[in-house]
């Protein structure tokens, strides 16, 4: 990279770290709020503390890891359909 070029906000690794720590804090606060705010819930499962957080986290990890496995089956070279 050109040394004269302007340094942008995420060129500094510290700023990235701050962002990630901010995310951790927000997540912790949101679970904490579960003990304060009553969520109306229809199902017993939904009434668990932090249910939505846990579900979101598990869902995304599952999604990505499953898709990674799926890629092994469905991925072909880019010209796959162009070859006759």
């Amino acid at each position, binding site marked *: *990279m050109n040394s004269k070029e302007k340094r*942008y906000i*995420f*060129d500094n690794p510290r700023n990235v770290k701050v962002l*990630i720590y901010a*995310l*951790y804090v*927000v*997540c912790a606060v*949101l*679970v904490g*709020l*579960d003990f304060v*705010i*009553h*969520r*109306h*819930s*229809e*199902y017993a499962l939904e009434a668990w503390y*932090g*249910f*939505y*957080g*846990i*579900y*979101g*986290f*598990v*869902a*995304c*990890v599952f*999604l*990505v*890891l*499953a*898709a*990674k496995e*799926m*890629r092994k089956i*469905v*991925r*072909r*070279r*880019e010209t*796959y*359909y*162009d070859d006759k």
Partner: protein
Amino acid sequence: MTSSLAPFLIFYVGAGLAAITRGRLRQVLLMAIPLVGGINLFYLGRGDLVAFGLFDYDLILLRVDKLSFLFSIVFHIAAFLGIVFALHVKDTTQHVSGILYAGSSIGAVFAGDLITLFIFWEMTAITSVFLILARKSSRSQATAMRYLIIQVMSGVILLAGVLVRYQQTGSVEFTFIGLDGPGGALILLAFGIKAAFPLLHSWLTDAYPEATPTGTIFLSAFTTKLAVYALARGFPGTEILIYVGATMTAFPIFYAVIENDLRKVLSYSLINQVGFMVTGIGIGTTLALNGAVSHAFAHIIYKALLFMSMGAVLFRTGKINGTDLGGLYKSMPLTSIFCIVGAASISAFPLFSGFVAKSMVLAAAVEEGHPIVWMVLLFASAGVFHHSGIKIPFFAFFAHDSGIRCKEAPFNMLAAMAVAAFLCIAIGVYPAPLYSLLPFEVNFDPYTAGHVLAQAQLLFFSALAFTYLKLSGLYPPEMVGVNVDAEWSYRRLLPRAVSAFIATFGPIDHAVRHLAMRGTQRVIVWIFRHHGPEGVLAATMPSGAMVLGVVSVLAIFLLLYFVS
């Protein structure tokens, strides 16, 4: 004063004028079309405004009720956004086909009978294909033909269904259809093709990423949402749609995670979003239907915004693959911000438009006792944030710096994105105007503390999962390649099957024809031998031979006469 001018006419006439004007004049004219259309909508009366009889059919060209009115408004907004975004384009074909396509879609939502619907249904196919052809690459030409065949097929199936239904019921009016007879099933199939039902969806992920940067904005808005409108009118409460819709929300997100072409990622997430609407229509309660159509309204705008941000990237860098992009927030800061607004809206962040619309469908699933469907929708909600909310902005504008330094998007593109972003936030913050347009009265408040908290938890922990996977190196890297999907059946399996068929039966066919040819040849030779120039039967007979013949016949006659 009320108007009864069919709104599609403004677009059709406008397209004609756009074709014969150039430069600034055309730009002004193009922007005026949806604005004049909007004024006309404002004064439009209610009920069956234009109806006439043709042969035995009662056709209703213009039926205005709450459902058609809501879709026509958002189609006007989408047309306006698409036009402003494409204002710098000099290509007459793209402008004219974009306007005709928007006009045809608007014509279709006002169609009060199924014959009129069929005509506009086919018009949307024919007018939109030019937005793909205009890319002018050999790949886009092939894609466009596949797109056209499938779209026209949907129309043909629709017409077959309409005629079968007419035989049964004696009516072509477009009201509730349901799945009682074969006609209804055919019509549902036709709607299902345009709505991109699972296994019928490949035309969408095939065509949308191949259209021009500006053409995809039009494509993303109209065809699938026209199908959602048609399903909402014809098939509310049809139970199978609940499961079809839930499948649509879930399966495309797996493809979206591993897809490299960012416009194709958006195409997969489009199917995911339409899935929520289809589920809502299947549930069919007033809350669910309100949710489905308000989601369609919000979705058209934020999806257009996301496609616009990626279109701007493609326009400026000539690249759209995740592997080639990254760090563009440095060159295109405004586009980045608009993209993030679109991403927040599709992810249904509180204060953004997706939140006030989609929640109704989830609430209806709970209310009507579909826990499994609710779990799937929740999974899909987390998943859509993961690939559309994070992946799209992250890989295009952040991630590793690709080193690309380009100009910010042109002014007209930024203006279109700004309007769309404003609408996304405005609807999210103040949903009352949208709610007042919905077909049923709204008794739903998205902004309860518990609901906001639940959604925030779901989304922030999805972001946490992304961060965890990224930092631990488990996240699959972007890779060059194509991921085969249902289109494999007709792009690979069918041609292969045809070649295999020819390879197997070709020789047999050849042998049979050879045999037949030899037989025919022999017959010809045999006939030639007797009747040819040298043949005994072809020889000229002397007149004496004829006399002999006549005398013989006479003799036999006399003999018979004598005997009797």
